[in-house]
């Protein structure tokens, strides 16, 4: 049954899309503002496809919207990485870079999936995420080797987020593909970008787990959902 795997994909794009959309109107420059909004828009669009298919296959009369707005944190199956708060622009872009680097590998594999509905969503998403990864990589490189301050901030961002990288490559039967198999390609790409960015990959490979299984999310997710879900939860009879 593919539903749990579809929900994982859709929850990742939903939670990250929501996080990135928080920047709208507050970015360091207009060009960055527009690009962040663009990324968020793509992610919300992908969410509609993944969660839409999950809801349809589940066959319980739910929709992408009911999955997004009427589940509590314990039923979310996103990676812990994407629920991390935005903090400064450096943390936001490092989170984006780490996610994009995993996301593109995952989607490229899923684009070849035997299930044609899954491969169709992946193929559409690959086009968008190729651009996301290009942009977040360029940003990590520019800020990594830009000034002393930006270098320090980017290294701190990498160190701070590193413990959330391992979960992307943990895998079980619910995943749409073997996520562990994506690690070598991810590591190779990461190394290239970090070298150009003059950043150092942290030594410890300790990884926090619990997002994609729902066993233990961080404290941040509940606050995000409280904001995101407030209207449909407060006015369950309304249509919008």
């Amino acid at each position: 049954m593919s539903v749990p795997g579809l929900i994982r994909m859709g929850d990742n794009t939903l939670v990250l899309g929501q996080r990135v959309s928080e920047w709208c109107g507050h970015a360091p420059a207009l060009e960055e503002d527009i690009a962040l909004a663009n990324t968020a828009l793509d992610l919300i669009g992908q969410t509609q496809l993944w969660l839409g298919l999950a809801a349809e296959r589940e066959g319980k009369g739910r929709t992408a919207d009911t999955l997004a707005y009427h589940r509590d944190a314990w039923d979310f199956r996103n990676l812990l990485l994407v629920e991390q708060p935005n903090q400064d622009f450096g943390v936001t872009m490092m989170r984006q870079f780490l996610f994009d680097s995993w996301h593109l590998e995952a989607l490229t594999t899923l684009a070849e999936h035997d299930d044609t509905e899954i491969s169709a969503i992946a193929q559409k998403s690959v086009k968008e995420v190729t651009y996301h990864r290009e942009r977040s990589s360029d940003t990590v490189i520019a800020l990594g080797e830009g000034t002393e301050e930006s270098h320090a901030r980017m290294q701190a961002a990498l160190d701070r987020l590193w413990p959330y990288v391992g979960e992307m490559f943990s895998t079980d039967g619910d995943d749409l593909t073997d996520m562990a198999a994506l690690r070598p390609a991810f590591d190779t790409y990461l190394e290239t970008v970090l070298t150009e960015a003059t950043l150092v990959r942290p030594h410890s490979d300790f990884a926090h787990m619990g997002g994609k299984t729902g066993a233990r999310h961080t404290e941040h997710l509940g606050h995000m959902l409280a904001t995101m879900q407030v209207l449909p939860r407060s006015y369950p009879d309304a249509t919008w």
Partner: protein
Amino acid sequence: MYAQMIKSEATQDDPEKLAAFQARIDAGDKIEPKDWMPAGYRKTLIRQIGQHAHSEIVGQLPEGNWITRAPTLERKAILLAKVQDEAGHGLYLYCAAETLGVSRDELTEMLLDGRMKYSSIFAYPTLTWADMGAVGWLVDGAAIMNQVPLQRTSYGPYARSMVRICKEESFHQRQGFDIMMKMANGTNTQKRMAQDALNRFWYPSLMMFGPSDKESVHSEQSMAWKIKMNSNDELRQKFVDQTVPQAEYLGLTIPDETLAWNEEKGEYDFAEPDWSEFFDVLKGNGPCSVERIEARQKAWDDGAWVREARLAHAAKKQAAKVAAE
């Protein structure tokens, strides 16, 4: 109206050149960046385009306030795209202003230190989801009234940016009206939100056109230069005449007891907004004036290291390129 109360600069240029310039404008020519232009024309345009650009950027904030709370995935995507369009409009307009010899950074500093203004409407809060409808329907509706004629304005880069902006604005207005229809035809609470939004946004929307022509002393020169195309009262009347039937269609009540169709004039009679409130807002005493500038200041300050790093990186890349050649 995204640029209100723009004072036209007097100009002391060579009378012959001035007459030739005016003749070009009267003939419907477009003035381009490298053409000769009176100092007052340049200065007035910088002020007007700059204020318009600032309005787009500050205008992201009241709507951005609801992106994280949009009630469906589709509404979230639509609102995000809309606020992103506004950032895009700001970008075209700052570029248009740059052709007159002022940088985006200089304009930003003038916004932050209060030397330049933004439209009064964005100093008002967005309090419920219905406000996303009201802003699209009324605020974008009022903006379109002003901006459609500005597509014919005399300064080429400004006119061309308006063509693109108008296309997107009319799309925004339809989206706003669509939200209002959902709300006005929804549950009792949704109807209440819709009426409340109209109550709060009606008079501030009328203020967007600026004070009455009788008090607007700076219009004449701008009209002659075709920087301003219609009078404030003309546009306000047109806006009211267009909006009243739409409100009736929605089943909402315009918060003006004096509003009545005037058969003889073929237009609506309506009450003027409270102009003392308008002047308070322009002075920085709008309900959200302080928050809006604080938010822009914070984005500017917090983003400084990013802008510096991007410049430093670009310079390093350039140096490496030169060294390689």
